[in-house]
């Protein structure tokens, strides 16, 4: 029911209508709830309406957080295996 996915706005049409692209699938949706969305923006689409904008910077920050975890765990592993290799 809550299926909603990020899709990119590729075309704005008359009124509130826009065409979004999700992995090659193009669909007409309403931008009435996110009138500030521009071509190139990612919007979260639910039941034919964009309900919010996706902030690319924040998405990258979240992904970077996972990457930090990766680095931290690698460092921890290096410590526990000891400096014998050096």
């Amino acid at each position, binding site marked *: *029911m*809550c*299926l*909603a*996915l*990020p899709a*990119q706005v590729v075309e704005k049409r008359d009124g509130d209508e826009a065409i979004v692209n*999700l*992995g090659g699938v193009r669909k007409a949706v*309403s931008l*009435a*709830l*996110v*009138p500030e969305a521009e071509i190139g923006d*990612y919007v*979260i689409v*639910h*039941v*034919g*309406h964009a*309900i*919010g*904008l*996706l*902030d*690319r910077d*924040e*998405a990258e*920050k*979240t*992904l970077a*957080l*996972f990457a930090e*975890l*990766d680095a931290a*765990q690698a460092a921890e592993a290096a410590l526990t295996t000891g400096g014998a290799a050096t």
Partner: protein
Amino acid sequence: MKYIDEFRDGAIARQLGERIHAEAHPDRVYRFMEFCGGHTHALSRYGVTELLPPQVQMIHGPGCPVCVLPIGRIDLAIRLALERGAIVCTYGDTMRVPASDGLSLIKAKARGGDIRMVYSAADALKTAQAHPDREVVFFAIGFETTTPPTALVVQQAERLGVKNFSVLCCHVLTPAAVTHILAAPDAEQHGKVELDGFIGPAHVSIVIGSDPYVPFAEGWHKPVVIAGFEPLDVMQAILMLVRQVNEGRAEVENEFTRAVTPKGNVAAQKVMDEVFEVRDSFEWRGLGVVPHSALKLRERYAAFDAERRFDLHYQPVPDHKACECGAILRGVKRPTDCKLFGNVCTPDNPVGSCMVSSEGACAAHYSYGRFRDIPIVPAAPQARAA
């Protein structure tokens, strides 16, 4: 696909799992409720539960709109189609929810009711415009995510002067349901579930923002972490909840900052407020009557309110006696505690609402988790051929 696949990386998921194992104290239990069916689905589908230590327990909440829709409401929609000759439009997953007399919307359609599945509320309005000689009712369900599109369509119908369109409004409110679970007013009857925190809804929070959860953190001292619906989102949220519990904190944290802000989508809130007002009370499947937990159309839009237009009166209908959906939605029982699970009640033939939607706790466990219940035993050594 952009901003989807990146949040499904298996290697990072394993690392997050290891981090949760490392930080969760072995001598205490962490009970977290995922309010949304979307999270329930993600936990089951991607096997997230397998990556969690045994002391971190996930409890399903009532956040699937299909699961909490009471039988009496579906009966109203069915009667509109079968007895009043209306065209009833609704979202696909509402179609199969069991109702009274062995019916569901899809079975009522087979009996001749003009019931149509729509992708969007706007499609329901288009149906009304295409059939000016018929009454068209949009059977509107869902939390705050689906509500703004319904509100928009009501305003549009008024603007366009569409006279044969109305809405049977069953939109419900998330904060009211969370309050109800925390207050557990009927704990004596159903048992109370102890909770250490919540994974807050993803898409609902895009609309309402993160601020409405502050009372749960401050007033009830329950940590809330809002999370997206991808597996890494859910695991990161669990890690953040474990940390809050370990540090004795109870705050609202936002893992889903790429889409959720503190104030939410103000334009969407405005259109909702213009069209709807809070009902005094509303019956939820599994939770019973919850005060101030649902919406109805404002007086100004009375012409588009199907309940007034057709003079409908809600009649509560009890669930199937053996169905445990109520207790499962409260987090008191698990799908496998239900006698009907997996034998009488399956996704092909759901008895209870939790088996209908793929986001329901029972359907999620049936589809992705039920083989986990079977213990793995080493195969007996094969007798060597002489």
